[in-house]
């Protein structure tokens, strides 16, 4: 049983890699300078597995179908390489990384045009910053994070630009609380939630209360209501909501106490989590090591302890490479 579970992150890595390679091959074959060497290399790649073949067919056939866009030639002037400016700037942020808005206390939020200045808050790698706002709302910034905040008489708006932030919102029906992450919107009717924006993936986990999440610029994605235990994940192309136990969500928030709780976590994931908190990086050198599972509560800033557990409990090799540590089978 468990060896299948352990393969999960590796499957994702392999699939991402294959998809990346498929895109790279289609991109390369779309160039004018395709050589017989390229062809031979490509044939070799393709023959390695059916997974390569289906990934390639998937990208290549749709890229070919996009040739139909040529029908628009003339309707889109060469000097104005823009089809529609309408909403483009905002929508494109969804592609770059989705957004979240949380609005407290029912009703539609109105984004204020007030001239109240923005306040910036940021942490560096390993940092942790609790913030108390005048309305009683509290926020906590995790490592390497940035938010901007604008509160005025009628609205409270926060932009999570990077990293992760926990919010405990003081309810006020007259001043909706809105959090933007990219272009997705969560309307918060409740109180406690955490929002993260790591690479192009946005995640919102609700601990208490209620929230609505939607993507204002993409009406075709329907609004979803979050209840405690719901975790919304948005990528460039999708928004989905799943359930986690509150205990798991709270474990994920152990960073508020400077801790990382690992519960049968793949070593590769664990290292990635540790690396968010430290300039000294943990490098997992091979797949065998990456697939090991690790349990325990770690001080997020203690790279050496992590290394010792890998060596003494998991029986892996741990070596130094400059400032970083390398873990291998």
């Amino acid at each position: 049983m468990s060896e299948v579970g352990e393969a999960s992150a590796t499957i994702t890595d392999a699939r991402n890699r294959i998809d990346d390679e498929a895109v790279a091959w289609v991109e390369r074959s779309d160039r004018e300078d395709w050589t017989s060497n390229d062809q031979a290399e490509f044939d070799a790649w393709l023959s390695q597995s059916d997974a390569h073949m289906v990934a390639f067919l998937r990208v290549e056939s749709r890229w070919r179908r996009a040739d139909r866009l040529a029908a628009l030639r003339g309707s889109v002037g060469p000097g104005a390489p823009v089809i529609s400016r309408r909403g483009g700037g905002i929508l494109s942020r969804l592609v770059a990384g989705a957004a979240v808005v949380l609005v407290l206390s029912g009703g539609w939020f109105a984004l204020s045009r007030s001239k109240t200045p923005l306040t910036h808050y940021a942490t560096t790698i390993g940092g942790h910053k609790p913030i108390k706002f005048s309305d009683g709302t509290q926020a906590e910034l995790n490592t390497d994070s940035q938010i901007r905040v604008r509160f005025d008489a009628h609205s409270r708006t926060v932009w999570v630009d990077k990293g992760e932030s926990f919010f405990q919102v003081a309810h006020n029906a007259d001043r909706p609380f809105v959090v933007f992450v990219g272009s997705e919107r969560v309307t918060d009717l409740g109180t406690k939630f955490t929002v993260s924006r790591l690479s192009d993936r946005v995640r919102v986990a609700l601990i208490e209360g209620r929230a609505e999440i939607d993507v204002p610029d993409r009406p075709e994605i329907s609004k979803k209501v979050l209840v405690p235990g719901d975790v919304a994940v948005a990528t460039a192309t999708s928004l989905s909501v799943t359930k986690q136990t509150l205990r798991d969500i709270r474990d994920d928030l152990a960073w508020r106490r400077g801790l990382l709780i690992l519960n049968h976590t793949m070593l590769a994931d664990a290292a990635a989590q540790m690396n968010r908190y430290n300039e000294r990086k943990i490098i997992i050198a091979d797949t065998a090591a990456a697939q090991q599972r690790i349990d325990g509560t770690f001080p997020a800033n203690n790279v050496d302890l992590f290394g010792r557990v890998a060596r003494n409990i998991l029986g892996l090799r741990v070596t130094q490479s400059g400032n970083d540590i390398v873990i291998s089978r």
Partner: protein
Amino acid sequence: MVDGTDTGKSGSDLGRTSASVTSPDAKSWFVREILPLEGLLMHLLNRYLRNPTDAADARQDVYVKVYEAARTQLPDAPKQFLVTTARNLVIDRIRRKQVVSIEAAGDLERFTIPSDEPGPERTAEARSELGRLRRILDRLPPRCREAMILRKIEGLPRRDIASRMGISETAVAQHLALGMRVVADELDALDTGSEP
């Protein structure tokens, strides 16, 4: 179940001969019959699996299984075959308590789309492909969209796109790779993120 992964990680010099014996039929059948059903497939997988990443992983496994079957013999009812393959894979994962949302277990009987009932993908088909492409283009980041327009609408080579945009050919390739990825993910996706 993880056969796609196993072969995928086998490295660069471990050539297998399987693809070379593939009849061209399997490829064109796969492109013609299966890929347009991706919206339906993802709709089903997203309902039963924990998150989009797991769904995308499962998508690849399903495609590999369907493609492997097609290399031996082309299935008669592509949609039914795809749905059944996806269903078996999800059941397999539930059995192994892997990557499945907690609502999934009691709800599996809904995993069958009767083949005579219009599935959600029909709606998607009904929309014009050009319209879909145009909307996809509109949602790209501005520079990426510009590169895509110069390539696909104007038909310019990368060198000319680079000089028009004042960037390197490598940067053009990166913009096009992003556009390509979004087209691959969205062209056959369902139009709506809601339940049908």
